[in-house]
């Protein structure tokens, strides 16, 4: 559900924060073209960071629904973006106990890189990324 909603071009997010333990208590998502309201219960310490799991979310920081950094009393775009990423990661896939993922998914990129020139392309790019 999060993945689907995040694909909309313009989402507004509103956050309420549980001040007692500094965890996100509830996030509401409002979609421009949908009257539905979606509630998410999530705690920051339960969520991992930084998977680019879906399309980047367009955040309207000029709206009243923007996140407020309560310590500074101002809109903190970076902070709010981080929270959106955390929200998205909530939907990460989980292993199927009956599934042999290694056999099922290994080599899934082979068909995309099957020319002779592609030999080791992924590792070569990684090495380049690491300055080697």
């Amino acid at each position: 559900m999060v993945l689907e909603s995040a694909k909309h071009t313009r989402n507004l997010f509103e956050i309420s924060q549980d001040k007692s333990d500094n965890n996100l208590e509830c996030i509401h998502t409002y979609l421009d073209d949908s009257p539905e309201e979606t509630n998410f219960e999530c705690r920051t310490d339960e969520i991992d960071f930084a998977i680019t799991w879906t399309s980047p979310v367009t955040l309207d920081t000029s709206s009243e629904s923007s996140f407020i950094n309560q310590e500074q009393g101002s809109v903190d775009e970076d902070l709010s973006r981080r929270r959106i990423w955390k929200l998205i990661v909530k939907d990460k896939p989980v292993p199927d106990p009956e599934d042999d993922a290694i056999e099922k998914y290994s080599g899934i990129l082979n068909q995309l890189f099957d020319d002779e020139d592609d030999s080791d392309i992924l590792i070569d790019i990684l090495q380049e990324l690491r300055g080697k």
Partner: protein
Amino acid sequence: MIESGNNILSLHIPSPPKLQVFYIDSNVLLNYLGNYGKRNEMEAAKRFLKSIQDGKRKGIVSTWALMEIITVIRKALALKGKTDFSDIEPIVDQSISAIYKIRNLKIVSGTPLEMSKINSKPPLLWEIFEKALDHMSNSMYDVEWNDKKKLNEIVGIGSNDAVHILLAVHFGCDYLATFDKGFWVDTRPITIFDVYNNTER
């Protein structure tokens, strides 16, 4: 010890051996996802990851590694002529999902989302970076001629390598599992596991 009537049956149940913990380098996962040109590498990556899936070893993947993998796949697809976001991102999603689907593989965060402004403790990233900088600064390196590229290269610990090593140490791993012949340092705080040869070095 189990008592049954007047008989006493003494059972010795040995505690299970401690499983070794492997920090998994990005190249292991990339070889699992696809290496058309080097099937042996892919088979070695599969064999290694299977040992984790089967519970014979413990394996962790850092979000730092996942970010590298995402960057690599995006660049590779762009090199192959894919320019549309909608063509690239589903493949990235499938690839990362294929990693998450491996049983017993733990994804850990080593990045600065501890919300330092809210939590009192400093962000993990900066702790890791500080240690990685110290490690890099105190490691020796060589300058070697690369005949293929026709240029001199630094052979030693790079910035990404240092972060991976320090993350592995931070998460209490026994080994850093990699295909990389690098991680060449004079003093390594963690043992390197050569996935291709299935042995430590």
